[in-house]
């Protein structure tokens, strides 16, 4: 792997192919379209679905600690299991699941670089066999607040002019549209962005084959061109926190930013909040136009 700061969190399709029967490794697929897993998955992989498995069915929140422990145990995952996540759409949902695993303190999580697309391009086999493993033994930690930002914290962060990153499309950022191009509007009543947020659309992190861009390219994008500071507290958001968990992964593990949080409430919450500031247009706006300079 190129010189990422924490290269150990990425594995290649070749590595995964060599660990399909490794009892210490659990391969986990997480997709936008979950029928993809049903249609064909990496042999031996289990599925964790972002909507059905990871979301609390009642409150707008993730499943609680006990439910996460149960989910892992049922998938044959124990505390010391190496969990390798992959999926469709440049590993976007895989990164989301990775973030939730980190939220509950799982030690060894990795992403299969390139996800389903790279596995397919490499001509590796798919399986539609049902998969089950003996129950794992799992004790989760309390949620790790150091990687998750809630609304009030984002408001303070914004008012202090700290580093904020909006990873949605430029049209969503400007406020021209309130959902992704080609996606249904999922209910934000206002368009625009959190004042001070820089716009780096999430696909800029990835190559056409679904793998992450090189450390050099990512460094140029975030550090050289946008002048973002590795040590400044950073919050990333998108529409519901899925695309921004991919950016959170890139900043934290590939570029070694020290303090990045994902705001999972994201625009679906912010765009509906009463009396929170919103900036329209292509400029970050707000009191400080260059948030990176604030707490350098």
């Amino acid at each position, binding site marked *: 792997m190129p010189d990422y700061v924490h290269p150990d969190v990425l594995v290649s399709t070749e590595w995964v192919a060599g660990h399909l029967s490794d009892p210490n490794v659990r391969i986990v697929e997480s997709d936008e*379209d979950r029928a*993809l897993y049903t249609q064909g998955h990496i042999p031996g992989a289990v599925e964790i679905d972002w909507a059905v498995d990871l979301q609390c069915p009642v409150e707008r929140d993730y499943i609680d600690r006990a439910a996460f422990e149960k989910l892992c145990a049922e998938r044959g995952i124990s505390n010391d299991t190496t969990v390798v996540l992959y999926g469709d759409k440049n590993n976007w949902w895989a990164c989301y699941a990775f973030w939730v695993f980190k939220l509950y303190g799982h030690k060894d999580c990795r992403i299969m670089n390139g996800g389903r697309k790279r596995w397919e391009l490499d001509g590796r086999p798919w399986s539609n066999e049902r998969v089950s493993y003996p129950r794992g033994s799992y004790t989760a930690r309390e949620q790790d607040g150091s990687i998750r930002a809630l609304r009030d914290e984002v408001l303070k962060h914004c008012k202090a002019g700290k580093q904020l990153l909006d990873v949605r499309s430029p049209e969503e950022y400007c406020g021209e549209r309130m959902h992704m191009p080609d996606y249904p509007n999922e209910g934000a009543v206002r368009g625009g962005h959190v004042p001070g947020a820089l716009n780096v659309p999430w696909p800029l992190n990835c190559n056409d084959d679904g793998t992450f861009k090189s450390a050099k390219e990512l460094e140029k994008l975030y550090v050289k061109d946008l002048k973002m500071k590795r040590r400044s507290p950073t919050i990333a958001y998108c529409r519901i926190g899925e695309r921004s968990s991919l950016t959170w992964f890139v900043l934290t593990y590939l570029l070694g930013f020290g303090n990045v949080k994902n705001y999972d409430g994201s625009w679906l919450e912010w765009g509906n909040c009463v009396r929170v500031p919103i900036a329209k247009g292509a400029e970050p706006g707000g009191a400080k136009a260059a948030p990176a300079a604030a707490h350098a």
Partner: protein
Amino acid sequence: MTPDGRPSVNSVQHRLDAIVGEFADLDGREKLELLVDFAKGLQPLSREYEARKAAEDRRVHECQTPVFLWTEAEDGRAKLTAEVAPEAPTVKGFVAILAEAVNGRPIGDVAALSDEFLDRMGLIDILGMMRARGLRAIVARVKRGFAQCEAAGS
């Protein structure tokens, strides 16, 4: 409808009820497998529609993956033709179900199509609310398309 209020055999509703019946008693994994089977059954576009795809704006913009739909009438009967990207088997399977329910039926019948069958199939439990919303948008789009067809008197 028959005089006693039941959907007539081969009405859109009757066909949907039959499909709902196939799904209803399956567990989550089996439901997804059946959906994938439907997806596999969606016929690829004929050469004629391939050519029209390039010439006409048939992309469903509300939809997350490339979906192209034609809602047309042939002798007053509904003809739903579709192409869905292979990376979206859920949408593809769902569109195949709609095609099976409406094709060959009087276009006026399609107006009676309701998206409540999604709940009865138990798809919401296995897909979640956000994905279900996308599927409801497709039902609305298909109904709108055939309503326009009917209004145009074709």
